[in-house]
């Protein structure tokens, strides 16, 4: 066991250590870490290892040390704790500790009715919250045998693709921020603010939209949304190229991401990774094409795939997906049918007992919801499958061998959102 802080090392040169080697002080202004329970925050857990993997991880070989990239750190992915085992500057092993944002959403959803579930499920991946709603709504519509009107489907696709662009733009900004570039995040937030104000005109909220309903959406398109959307569309392609060009050819960015954190095809499939990370590894799996839902069979778009599997490939896939999303939005606007935006449903939703799985393609991967109904007003079991959870699971495989400076770059390139990981 490596020596603990404060043991056999005086904390101040003015104090005289006593015979036992432990510094003591009568000065009430000096509070030693061990007095307020610093043991809790040491990287090494204070209990003996309970599993094989924990024992293997928390055993230090010669020349290794632990570094606690704690739940609070400047990389803005949220509260994630990575206990990193380092040998010099090189990472030997990493143990992600989750749960700092576990809010018990599944349990709350079991005690809520179906309308409230859609609201509760928003803050999971807060950056792209419509996709959680979409997965939940797909699952409930299967439980209740509801057909969604075509106009509602087109509005869903339209708002979803807009939010996908906003999420990818933020992803590019965060990736650059973690590599040290402070400018792209500002560009990213400008674009995101535009899109999100558009969606606020449509749904009423900037971030946690609560817009989708079982059987449709909450409200029809309105003038403000359409005028903002028109303004944005006239600039969208050029803005995308400009933001992407800021980073694509930047030598520092490319050299720090090319060949770093390679997730190959076999490993990605064994993890169950989905979304852009899987497509960057060479598997063209996109839920919109593999298992189409909504009106995606009628829309014409490509699924960008790359084979390298490194961070640069993951980044370039997102850039390509933004272009594809702009194409999809264009088609939606041209083909928008008329009609109602909500199916006719009873106020009190009581489906027959049964089980349903609904999955949609979010910006990070396949977002799935498995719900069990017992005939009452709310779901009996509401299980959320979040793509960021599986993406984060690849971190102990991707990080070892890289330098510490690449930690945040690799984690950022996987695009984790802690709300979804911790539910």
């Amino acid at each position, binding site marked *: 066991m490596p020596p603990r802080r404060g043991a056999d090392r005086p904390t101040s040169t003015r104090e005289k250590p006593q015979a036992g080697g432990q510094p003591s002080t009568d000065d009430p202004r000096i509070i030693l870490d061990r007095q307020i329970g610093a043991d809790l925050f040491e990287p090494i857990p204070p209990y003996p290892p309970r599993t094989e993997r924990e024992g293997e991880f928390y055993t230090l070989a010669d020349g290794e040390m632990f570094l606690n990239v704690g739940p*609070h750190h400047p990389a803005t992915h949220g509260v994630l704790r990575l206990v990193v085992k380092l040998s010099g500057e090189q990472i030997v092993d990493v143990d992600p500790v989750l749960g700092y*944002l576990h809010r018990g959403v599944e349990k*709350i959803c079991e005690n809520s009715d179906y309308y409230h579930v859609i609201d509760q499920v928003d803050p999971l991946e807060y950056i792209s919250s419509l996709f959680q709603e979409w997965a939940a709504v797909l699952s409930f519509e299967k439980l209740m045998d509801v057909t969604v009107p075509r106009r509602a489907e087109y509005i869903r696709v339209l708002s979803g693709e807009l939010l996908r662009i906003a999420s990818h733009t*933020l992803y590019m900004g965060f990736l650059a921020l973690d590599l040290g570039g402070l400018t792209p995040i500002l560009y990213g937030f400008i674009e995101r603010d535009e899109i999100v104000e558009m969606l606020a005109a449509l749904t009423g909220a900037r971030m946690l939209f609560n817009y989708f309903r079982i059987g449709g959406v909450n409200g029809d398109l309105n003038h403000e949304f359409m005028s903002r959307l028109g303004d944005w569309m006239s600039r969208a392609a050029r803005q995308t190229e400009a933001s992407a060009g800021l980073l694509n050819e930047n030598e520092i960015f490319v050299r720090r991401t090319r060949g770093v954190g390679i997730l190959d095809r076999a490993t990605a499939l064994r993890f169950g990774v989905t979304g852009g990370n899987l497509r960057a590894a060479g598997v063209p799996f996109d839920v919109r094409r593999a298992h189409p839902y909504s009106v995606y069979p009628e829309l014409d778009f490509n699924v960008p795939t790359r084979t390298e599997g490194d961070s640069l490939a993951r980044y370039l896939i997102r850039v390509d997906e933004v272009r594809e999303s702009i194409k999809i939005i264009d088609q939606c606007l041209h083909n928008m049918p008329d009609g109602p935006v909500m199916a006719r449903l009873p106020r009190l939703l009581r489906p027959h007992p049964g089980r349903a799985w609904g999955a949609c393609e979010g910006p990070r991967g396949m977002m799935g919801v498995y719900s069990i109904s017992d005939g009452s007003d709310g779901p009996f079991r509401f299980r959320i499958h979040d793509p960021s959870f599986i993406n984060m699971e690849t971190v102990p495989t991707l990080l070892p061998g890289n330098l510490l400076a690449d930690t945040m770059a690799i984690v950022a390139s996987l695009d984790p959102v802690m709300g979804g990981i911790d539910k």
Partner: protein
Amino acid sequence: MAVGDRGSRVRAAPARRLAPVPPGELATPIMVPNTLWQPADPLAYEGGRPADVTHLRGFGFTDAGRNDAARWGALQVVPTKADHILDLIRANSLWPLLSGLACCAIEMMSSATSKNDMDRWGMFPFRASPRQADVLIVAGTLTTKMAGPLIRLWEQMPEPKWCVALGDCTVSGGRYKRSYSVVQGIDRVMPVDVYIPGCPPRPEGLIYGMMQLGQLVKDRRGRWNERAIGPNAPDDI
């Protein structure tokens, strides 16, 4: 040990009484001759003769409820108007600590970036280290597992410090009122100065809250003797 309660940390002073000063009279100050070092310029520090003014009372400073002398430690020889200027300085340059936990963090970042610019009020540098930060903006749901590290961050921040609860989850537990792992409002664990409701609050709302905090800094002059853990709203609300 209650967090934020200075009284419980500072133990009672040892039983060594100073000579009591009769009210209204000036006591003779204890002058310690300077034998430690010599200034380079022999005429500096008034040439070595003792200073004329030795008490703040000489400057018209009274003790009637504005006892800032113990508060702003090193500046006891500065006239009291400077305390007001200090508060203005602090209010216009509140450096937040990056403490984004969940969704409200995105709105906090959005209010710090170009479109809603918090830099106009001097708040752009989000410090990563608590030692350099003034304000702890708790943005996002606080869970029981994260409460420990967050309190640690709060304790590490040097005074003067303020705390802003951003979003419904930090104000009262919000949409997670029934949850088993969410702290129902951060005022259960730390003293809060400004509450900003919303789920999430708009960036303009956050900026309004920070402006209220600036006003509070100027009004309350940073005294936190009456701050305690728990809702700090007055009883007549």
